[in-house]
């Protein structure tokens, strides 16, 4: 089969792709002895716990309810007893509220859930309601609540729905396995999303060229449907939302714009699968496909894991480590997050967990920038990363916004290529944090000024 080819133009890098688990079929991880389900597995306000210690819960039962519109429900991943509600380690690197469940092994669904139905019989409102109730969020890593994304402001018209099958991060293969093994469901999820918009949008699937099998299986599932398949160049960050939109539609997202400003809606593979589960099977989001990989893990696997499963249990299931490691990373090696504990749970956004020995990191020293210009060459956003670092290090906070920090999506291409091993992404993150703090302070000042006359 030949496919239309495309790619984003500006910048990009080719890190070693290390997809070690490419050929490992999705396996089901047995229920662990303990599940720690965090209440914030998404962007927005954390959910509020609606159960108390000692309660008996069933799989799919609501245990945390969304706090406001930009928030997401949290459900019990299996049946069991609530053991504890309190602070626990969280993949964000901090402690956060979590509900600890002791599974009873029966794994019973809550009454009324897990029923197959035909999504075409449902109205748009019912579909949105089901997705919202199921607590579906963007499962590629950002965790933006999907029901919010599916309800753009009424003045924004969505004319293109995109399935992000790029999976450009090295090591990660969970989306690839989903596209191979659950292609019907993923395509159906995509159709469900497309059906929510009127007039019927154009539907495009973008898959990187190193996943030919996924192209074939999705192509088979999408046969005779109004779905375009595009083969993307294997280049990082092909799966970045802005890059993907530019590659597939040619539209450029300008400063401060969101995808819906250019009429696009991008959904990740795992999210589409979860949408289909929630709508046509009435199953809340209680498990996800995750890649467990890294050169130091004995048996590298793609697993169906219940949300809340701690990494330490998965590690045991995968046969432990072959060598000492010094980094545990949740997400991919380019944009993931290093963890300080093996007790962190798998959440809705955990697309991969990597066990890697990165002792060479210790030998890297920040050297002066030699202005080689490689960061500029590879920046997919067309920024000047060296300049952003320079300004951040000199604390020229007042000048920061004009240099476009907000445009940086922290893909890490610049840090990857830097011959001086400068921590470019770190400094940009730092500058963003400083800017946010200044903005908050300004806002607070404005508010107090506004209140004074009344007092």
């Amino acid at each position, binding site marked *: 089969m030949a496919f239309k080819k495309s790619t984003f133009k500006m910048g990009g890098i080719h890190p070693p792709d290390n997809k070690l688990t490419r050929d490992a079929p999705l396996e089901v991880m047995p229920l662990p002895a303990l599940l720690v389900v965090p209440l914030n597995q998404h962007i927005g306000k954390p959910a509020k716990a609606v159960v108390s210690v000692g309660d008996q819960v069933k799989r799919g039962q609501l245990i945390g309810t969304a706090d406001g519109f930009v928030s997401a429900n949290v459900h019990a991943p299996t049946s069991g007893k609530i053991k504890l509600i309190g602070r626990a380690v969280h993949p964000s690197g901090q402690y956060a509220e979590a509900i600890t469940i002791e599974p009873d092994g029966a794994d019973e669904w809550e009454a009324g859930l897990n029923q197959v139905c035909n999504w075409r019989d449902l109205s748009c409102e019912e579909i949105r309601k089901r997705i919202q109730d199921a607590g579906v969020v963007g499962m590629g890593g950002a965790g933006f609540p999907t029901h919010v994304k599916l309800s753009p402001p009424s003045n924004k018209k969505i004319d293109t729905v995109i399935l992000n099958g790029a999976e450009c991060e090295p090591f990660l293969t969970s989306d690839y396995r989903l596209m191979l093994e659950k292609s019907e469901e993923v395509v159906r999820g995509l159709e469900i999303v497309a059906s929510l918009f009127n007039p019927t949008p154009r539907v495009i699937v973008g898959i990187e060229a190193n996943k030919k099998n996924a192209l074939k299986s999705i192509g088979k599932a999408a046969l005779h449907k109004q779905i375009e398949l595009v083969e993307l160049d294997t280049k990082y960050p092909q799966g970045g939302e802005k890059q993907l939109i530019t590659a597939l539609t040619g539209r450029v997202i300008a*400063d401060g714009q969101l995808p819906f400003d250019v009429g696009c809606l991008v959904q990740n593979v795992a999210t589409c699968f979860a949408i289909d589960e929630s709508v046509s099977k009435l199953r809340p989001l209680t498990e996800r496909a995750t890649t467990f990989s890294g050169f130091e893990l004995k048996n590298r696997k793609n697993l169906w894991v219940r949300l809340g499963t701690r990494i330490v249990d998965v590690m045991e299931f995968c046969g432990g480590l072959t060598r000492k490691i010094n980094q545990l990373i949740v997400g991919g090696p380019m944009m993931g997050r290093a963890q300080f504990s093996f007790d962190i749970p798998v959440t809705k956004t955990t697309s991969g967990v990597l066990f890697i020995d990165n002792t060479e990191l210790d030998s890297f020293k920040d050297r002066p920038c030699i202005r080689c210009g490689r960061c500029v060459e590879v920046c997919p956003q067309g920024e000047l990363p060296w300049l952003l670092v320079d300004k951040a290090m000199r604390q020229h906070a007042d000048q920061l916004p004009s240099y476009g920090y907000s445009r940086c999506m922290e893909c890490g291409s610049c840090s*990857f290529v830097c011959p*001086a091993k400068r921590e470019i992404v770190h400094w940009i993150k730092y500058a963003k944090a400083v800017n946010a703090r200044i903005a908050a302070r300004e806002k607070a000042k404005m508010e107090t000024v506004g209140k004074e006359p009344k007092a």
Partner: protein
Amino acid sequence: MNAESELVQLTVSYPPYTRSHESIERIMYTVLIALLPAVGTSVYFFGPRALWLTLVTTASCIGFEFLSNKLRKRDLTCFDGSAAITGVLLALNLPSNLPYWMAVVGALVAIIISKELFGGLGYNIFNPALVARVFLLISFPSQMTSWPQPLSVDVVTGASPLGIIKSDGVAALGTIDFWALFAGNMRGSLGETSALAILLGAALLWSRNCISLRIPLSFIGTTVAFTWIFYLIDPSVYAPPLLHLLSGGLMLGAFFMATDMVTSPLAARGQIVFGIGCGLLTALIRLFGGYPEGVSFAILIMNAVVPLIDRWDLRSRSRYREAA
């Protein structure tokens, strides 16, 4: 609880957790290797004196950087290869019969004044080797403009082809053997002579992604185009463009000095503007200036303009991304 996990010390660091194998040393030593053909041909044409001169400048550059590192109480950067490159490039800019002490003075100017006083590697505004060359040229004009005859046993010195044109006009050159110019068989500094050796080195640099061809091509292209126009106007007064291309420091300057990462613009458009500026200034100085050779002045002047070029480039970039 898994006993294994308690033994493992986890490091929390910033992403990305995978890095390319590129490093400053790797780039610098690649440049040094790329300079070897030029050094080799200079030894062939000018004898062992050329080699000794290269070794003296390289060793003294590394030595001065070592001293400066110690005085500034910084990590040792003298072996990262950049000081060695400065040394070799400086030697390639000198006549082979220059007294050694003058070469050492040149190294002092290059490393201490034009590099370390500005803050060391990455912070220098001007190309150190070129600053040293211009310093020597102004301080010791007679020694710096009398070039030994290549492949001769006796120490016969004279002016370079461009020098002859400047003082006596094009006619004084007689018939020009362009093959000899290309191979390097003419009077000039160590590295000015052989275009062939420089092209070999440049090919290595380009294949290793250490330079982009934007600066050299726009530089050389502009010089050739500009001199060509004047050659077409009056061939009896102005030298043919091929002579300008193959003689003097144009090749060395365009491929090895103007492409110095620290002192050239970062992005594509800026690099092309930089190259055109260098080429224009070079041609202007060669045709109308007081000095026979203009490459080093041209590059140094354009070095000073780099921040402006980068600023312009940045502005136009952000305009591109503004919402319509």
